């Protein structure tokens, strides 16, 4: 629609990046009814869809500043039950990246974001995820230094925490993806 390509609403940007059309939503509420995290969200998925439809800048900002987009775990229940097959998980991915890019991420969701960042950094240097490094890095970022320490001896004694990371041969190539991702957009 030409209206979409001309306006700068979040809904239009979403459509451009993901082909998802918020206008399709007829507010049946099945996504919110099925969403296991809706009680943790200030706006459940169907409300996010309605806010997008308004194309109101204030609502757009509320979405990008919400906890909703960070507590969503991408379980895909919403998409699975949507009679209009609206890819809400893709909407959430788009909103998270937009939220970070615009510096609007929700302060209460900082630890969720810190964990994701620590996860990606672990892969960046070795090509694979190393759980001890991930958790240590997360603790430094979140300052939750004592969290889960009781689990460590139990995990070690069960052989569930290898001390040394596995490093892939072509780790340079994988870290190259990170560099390329900084100036690629699709």
């Amino acid at each position, binding site marked *: 629609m030409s209206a979409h390509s001309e306006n700068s609403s979040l809904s239009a940007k979403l459509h451009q990046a993901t082909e998802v059309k918020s206008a399709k939503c007829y507010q049946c509420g099945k996504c919110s009814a099925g969403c296991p995290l809706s009680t943790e969200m200030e706006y459940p998925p169907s409300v996010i869809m309605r806010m997008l439809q308004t194309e109101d800048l204030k609502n757009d900002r509320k979405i990008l500043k919400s906890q909703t987009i960070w507590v969503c775990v991408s*379980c895909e229940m919403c998409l699975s039950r949507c009679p209009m097959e609206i890819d809400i998980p893709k909407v959430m991915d788009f909103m998270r990246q937009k939220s970070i890019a615009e510096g609007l991420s929700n302060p209460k969701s900082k630890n969720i974001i810190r964990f994701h960042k620590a996860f990606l950094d672990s892969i960046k240097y070795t090509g694979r995820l190393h759980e001890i490094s991930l958790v240590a890095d997360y603790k430094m970022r979140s300052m939750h230094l004592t969290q889960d320490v009781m689990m460590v001896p139990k995990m070690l004694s069960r052989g569930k925490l290898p001390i040394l990371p596995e490093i892939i041969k072509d780790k340079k190539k994988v870290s190259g993806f990170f560099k390329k991702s900084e100036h690629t957009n699709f």
Partner: protein
Amino acid sequence: MQKKIGYYPGCSLEGSAREYNESVQTLAKAFDVTLEQVPDWNCCGATAAHNLNKVLSFALPARILANAEKAGMENILVPCAACYNRLSMVQHELGKNESLRNEVNAIIEADLKCNLKILNIIQFIQMFISDFVGDKQQLLFNKKVACYYGCLLVRPNDVLGFDRAEDPQMMDEVMKSLGADTIDWPFKTECCGAGLSVSRTDIVGNLSGRIVKEAADRGAEAIIVACPMCHSNLDMRRPAIEKAIGEKIDIPVIYISQAIDMALGKTQKETGINRHFVPVNIELKKKEAEPQVVIEKTEEK
């Protein structure tokens, strides 16, 4: 007959879920299936990549697919449901969108064909194991179990499509064939809290708590899973679960591959069940030889 399949274990199977890897290896060995690792595989990026960085969410799985294709693999087994989901989704999206595929190819410096058959653990069992269990089964899994499929194994159904989205059956069928009684319950595909395990343990306690409690209330003696994230949340996060639901529940959580290994009479070292946080105190019954049905002809006088 020696059978061979590509194998992508993924990172958690090298660490916190190493018993899943051990049990899959044991299973493959028992049925003469060679698992050939995807050469120099990397992490799929999991939730973190698709939440924060779309380019990485494609590039990381794409390199894995490219390495498997280059090694001449046709089928790959991906036991982790999260990795299975990411690899399947990326292959699907790149397969149908040529311009996106070209962009990703440029980043990973490869030429993807997107024609791999990506198998999850249940499909693997169906293809290579189920028909051959027969005499190899030594013990009867004579327990009431709750098969828990989680999210990433079955959704989105139009792409993965290997079982029903709301009430999947394939794991139940495998367990029934081993002698188990599988419960009907509403939480087969409810979310356990997944990647929030460390950053929002409280949420995981609530979500996983509902699942464990429902299974226990319906009399299940074990929960059967096929995903390392589900396993770690239901097993290692049991203290958070018990805090959330306000009661102690000692029902063990067992990978489907471990359940088959147990029925084959494998040792704890081979199944890896000794690595769980919630002890697996399950005694299986020896499988009786099939009663021979003799039809006697009575001669009428």
